[in-house]
């Protein structure tokens, strides 16, 4: 039974989506519970697999039962079917994605009922399909399968964003163009790899690519690599392909943004890591002496630019979107540093940033729900009106800044260590700069929300009524914020049992 767990992770949300689609026409009230059930099953399976992988190593699953077969003309057996793999690199991500999705589904129920009233027939189904797509990208062991899952996630997200009305249609259209360009580049990259490798299976490719390069570097494999990386960069909104993200996530309804923002870009970063480390191997990366500095400069630019723009924005959601752009810069830079602390930081940050972004968007969503606006100036007195939400918000910002013992501190720690070790000082500077900017923004918000109104506890000042977010939204927000601290405290366990084993063996310390 446990060997079927990998497919259960995908089937949960997929079947739930179909059932929700049926329910939408008969008993609309059932579509949300179906999705919750599917996500819960998926999360349970993913969580169990974390422990199985920690003890037993990578788990491989072959769809249709088609695994290794001996081919007469080849020396070693090749996989003829489609494989899905749960190993040290993706098991934490799978648990994080399914868990955050589950929490967000609970959180978003109220928003769907109010913001999207009368139009929500397929929202739950699209939500579940998005999660199925993201989980699929994370779990698949076949590069073409990754493309198909990528498009499942993409199409669902275009629709989820377009629920926002008004400016969301143009924002979604622009995302569609950029996203499809990225997916097509990825597909083309697969073509170049395929023309030399002859197989689509990730494990088999990692085995034969070194032999293909035995007579010198292969230009086709190089072009394929660059195309795939560019495609992934477009999907994760890495500078200079970040243009679609701020508008898309700001004009999307809160219910959509709170699931898209934490998860979509991180999964794209994972896809990049998977291609870099498993398909191509760390030796190949180290051999690309021209590309590494370019990637690192772009990462620094992403962080600096994201920080700069977040300072100039007055809309809370926009600020959060530019935070995402700089966080993506952290991860790409960490990955391209190609040393132990850098990669550890990047992999840890996958999970940490997903959690932080989720908490951030949930808190902002609560504020928008009650106050109706997300402009900074409207936040007067919000600390009194919504104390619990703001407490969660402050904890999340502290994590983003990098205050111990939240998870954000440890990400920065590893990343700075890695950059210092590699001598890439512009990256270190960028990381510190972004923490500074976030601190400035936090203090600004505290100032507006706390100090600009007469304090109600002092005699003679008007009372400010509490108008806290509804419980169904508040509890997930608070839980996620606490989770940031818990994650931080559990860092060494996570790193030592799982992340360290995901690092390629041939890595320099």
């Amino acid at each position, binding site marked *: 039974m446990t060997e079927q767990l990998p497919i259960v992770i995908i089937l949960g949300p997929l079947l739930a989506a179909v059932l929700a689609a049926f329910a939408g026409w008969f008993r609309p009230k059932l579509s949300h519970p179906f999705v919750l059930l599917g996500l819960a099953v998926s999360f349970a399976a993913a969580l169990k697999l974390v422990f199985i992988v920690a003890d037993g190593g990578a788990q491989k699953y072959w769809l249709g039962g088609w695994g290794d077969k001996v081919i007469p003309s080849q020396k070693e057996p090749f996989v003829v079917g489609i494989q899905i793999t749960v190993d040290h690199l993706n098991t934490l991500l799978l648990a994080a994605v399914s868990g955050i999705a589950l929490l967000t589904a609970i959180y978003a129920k109220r928003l769907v009922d109010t913001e999207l009233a009368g139009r929500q027939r397929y929202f739950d189904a699209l939500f579940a399909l998005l999660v199925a797509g993201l989980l699929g990208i994370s779990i698949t062991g076949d590069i*073409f399968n990754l493309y*198909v899952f990528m498009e499942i996630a*993409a*199409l669902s997200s275009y629709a989820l964003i*377009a629920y926002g009305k008004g400016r969301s249609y*143009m924002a979604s*259209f622009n995302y569609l*163009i950029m996203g499809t360009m990225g997916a097509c580049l990825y*597909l083309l990259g697969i073509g170049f790899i*395929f023309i030399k490798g002859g197989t689509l299976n990730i494990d088999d490719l990692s085995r034969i690519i070194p032999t293909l390069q035995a007579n010198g570097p292969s230009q086709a494999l190089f072009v394929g690599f660059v195309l795939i990386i560019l495609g992934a960069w477009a999907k994760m909104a890495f500078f200079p392909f970040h243009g679609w993200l701020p508008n898309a996530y700001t004009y999307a309804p809160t219910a959509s943004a709170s699931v898209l923002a934490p998860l979509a870009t991180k999964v794209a970063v994972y896809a990049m890591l998977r291609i870099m480390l498993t398909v191509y191997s760390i030796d190949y990366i180290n051999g690309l002496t021209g590309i590494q500095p370019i990637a690192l400069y772009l990462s620094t630019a992403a962080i600096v630019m994201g920080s700069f723009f977040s300072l100039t924005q007055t809309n809370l959601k926009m600020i959060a979107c530019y935070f995402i752009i700089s966080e993506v810069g952290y991860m790409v830079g960490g990955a391209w540093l190609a040393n132990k602390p850098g990669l550890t930081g990047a992999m840890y940050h996958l999970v940490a940033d997903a959690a932080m972004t989720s908490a951030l968007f949930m808190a902002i969503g609560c504020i928008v729900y009650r106050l109706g606006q997300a402009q900074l100036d409207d936040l007067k007195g919000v600390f009194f009106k919504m104390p619990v939400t703001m407490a969660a918000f402050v904890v999340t910002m502290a994590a983003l800044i990098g205050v111990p013992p939240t998870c954000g501190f440890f990400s920065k720690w590893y990343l700075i260590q890695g950059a210092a070790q590699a001598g890439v000082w512009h990256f270190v500077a960028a990381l510190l700069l972004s923490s500074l900017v976030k601190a400035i923004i936090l203090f600004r918000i505290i100032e507006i929300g706390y100090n600009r109104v007469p304090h109600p506890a002092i005699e003679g000042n008007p009372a400010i009524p509490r108008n806290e977010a509804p419980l169904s939204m508040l509890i997930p927000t608070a839980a996620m914020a606490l989770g940031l601290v818990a994650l931080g405290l559990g860092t060494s366990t996570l790193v030592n049992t799982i992340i360290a084993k995901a690092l390629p063996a041939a890595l320099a310390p």
Partner: protein
Amino acid sequence: MVDSTAGSDTMENLIANFNYVIVVILMMIGLWAMLAQKNLIKKCIGMAIFQTGIILFFISIGAKNEAKVPILSKFVVENSSAIIVNDYANPLTQILMLTAIVVGVATLGVGLALAQKVYQQHSTFHEDEILENQRK
């Protein structure tokens, strides 16, 4: 990257693999349209051209000289040891491309739907005019 003596080799190679050159040109036309055209519908058409170009590329990779369609004839079905691999065109690339075509038309549909919604709001498909409208 290439020095002058290798220049003629490259030219030779280009001509021998002329098919690939055409494919790349086609793809780049589509990509250009996606990014540079201001009309939303033209962008969608460009997207479709880019995608069909990629599909042509993949089919080209899988082509085999003088190969038949990948369907086994009745005789061969009965005597499965008589299957000669080189007789048949590559089925794998074809399947990948079937999927790609379907994904392409799905994306085109969603893109057109979004474009239609934008038209309802702004009465135009032209990007610049839309941006102007939004700033008002």
